[in-house]
């Protein structure tokens, strides 16, 4: 991303708002933006989802390819997650090889999905040692107004739960839904004006400090964490956002279920 030139004035404005416990768009500290989830919207993908969180808009698409299992894991298929933020998504996203920001974004979302074990790679095996499915999950941002992490993670799990394995096209049986055994949900918190807020907007990201990404599964098991950007936080601060993440992840899980069915 190009270096944004305004953050100093923005920072002091955000600090002032924080002292009155206010946010730049009027939200409460733990309040997310309006979130809309649509699925099955990409005709060429086997699974797809679109997430709109305020002015942040992302797509997720799931494609399948046949692969030969690795010789040391003959009973397993593969899961590949690729996140791209192309320059379409905002003034500061530039063309060229992936930036460190973009790599971190992709890897953190990938770990949230992967480490939850929601896709059992053994279930992707067709003929041991010979043929297996590789699931490719592509995340694609159209409009970045902050918190691409949560938008990507939400679109990712919804697209997976909505994906049909194209057995017929590849002549290996009948089409069926991809098995997704659990539902990891990511909640991200950004330190803005000396305290963490949920679902930071782009302005809050630009004028804020560190961010913390928490991926929770069933029974509030932790599957993935990441602290990003320069900044220091205390154990107490962490305990507070972890508690909030437990509540928020429950609500988002309900949203996914209401859209794709349980």
């Amino acid at each position, binding site marked *: 991303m190009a270096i944004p030139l305004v953050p100093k004035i923005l920072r002091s404005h955000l600090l002032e708002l924080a002292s009155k416990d206010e946010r730049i768009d009027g939200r409460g500290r733990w309040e997310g933006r309006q979130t809309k989830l649509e699925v099955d919207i990409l*005709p060429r993908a086997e699974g797809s989802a679109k997430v709109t969180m305020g*002015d942040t808009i992302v797509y997720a698409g*799931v*494609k399948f390819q046949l692969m030969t299992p690795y010789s040391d894991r003959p009973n397993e298929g593969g899961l590949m997650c*690729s996140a*791209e933020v192309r320059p379409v998504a905002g003034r500061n996203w530039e063309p060229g090889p992936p930036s460190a920001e973009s790599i971190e974004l992709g890897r953190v979302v990938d770990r949230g999905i992967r480490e939850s074990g929601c896709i059992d790679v053994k279930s992707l095996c067709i003929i041991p040692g010979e043929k297996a499915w590789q699931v490719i999950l*592509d995340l694609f941002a159209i*409009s*970045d107004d902050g918190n691409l992490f949560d938008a990507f993670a939400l679109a990712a799990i919804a697209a997976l739960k909505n994906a049909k394995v194209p057995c017929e096209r590849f002549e290996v049986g009948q089409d069926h839904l991809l098995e997704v055994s659990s539902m990891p949900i990511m909640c991200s918190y950004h330190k803005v004006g000396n305290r963490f807020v949920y679902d930071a907007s*782009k302005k809050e990201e630009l004028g804020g400090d560190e961010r913390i990404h928490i991926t929770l599964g069933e029974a509030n098991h932790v599957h993935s964490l990441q602290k990003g950007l320069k900044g220091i936080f205390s154990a107490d601060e962490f305990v507070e956002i972890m508690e909030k993440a437990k509540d928020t992840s429950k609500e988002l899980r309900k949203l996914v279920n209401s859209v794709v069915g349980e």
Partner: protein
Amino acid sequence: MGGYGDIKMIDENGLRMDGRSATDVRPITIETGVVPVADGSCRMTWGTNDVIVAVYGPMEAHPRKIQRQDRAVLDVRYNMAPFSTTDRIRPGFNRRSREISKVTADALASVVLLEMYPRSKIRVEIEVICAEAGTRCVGLTAASVALADAGIPMTDMVVSVASGKINDVVVCDLNKEEDNYGEADLPMGVLPNTGEIVFLQMDGDLSPEQFQTAWDYNVNAAMEVHKIMIEALKNGGAK
């Protein structure tokens, strides 16, 4: 161009497999303002094609060495999303995308009043979310709308349509199946106010007479598509 086998793409009544006549264009929808963080944007669906264009700028051109003293630089990127086709497209460098980006930029630079913004840059980002056939035409046309949505002054809009040939018959606006088995493809970018051309490519095989027919189909279709563009810009904003 494929030209494989003996598949019959046009029936005895001159109708195509999707029921269109030789000169019919696929259904089109246009919506502006779909990328809220952009200065202008447009989503255009055209048959099963689904293309999103965002425009950023005019803004300072950096690094300085790319600046032009007398006009704005027009930076156009055409890209297909990995999930936009039946076989996934690997992200990254791609000669086809580079060429389409260049000819699209050349076409748009012919109508955008770049001289009004010296030393600045205008970015046009064309993303194909779902591809059928004719994505370069959809991208160029949608880019015109997005530039208008961003308030960038132009001498005219560019409307792009491709006619082609199947079973030795010239038809307008090939769909996917027709494109797979087609024998020629003639994409053009037309200025609706003057009928002049800013974009032209062609490959395959067309006799001089077939070529003239395809050309005429394109110019006529462009006038129709232009009406839909004007309507969308009048309505403004996202639905």
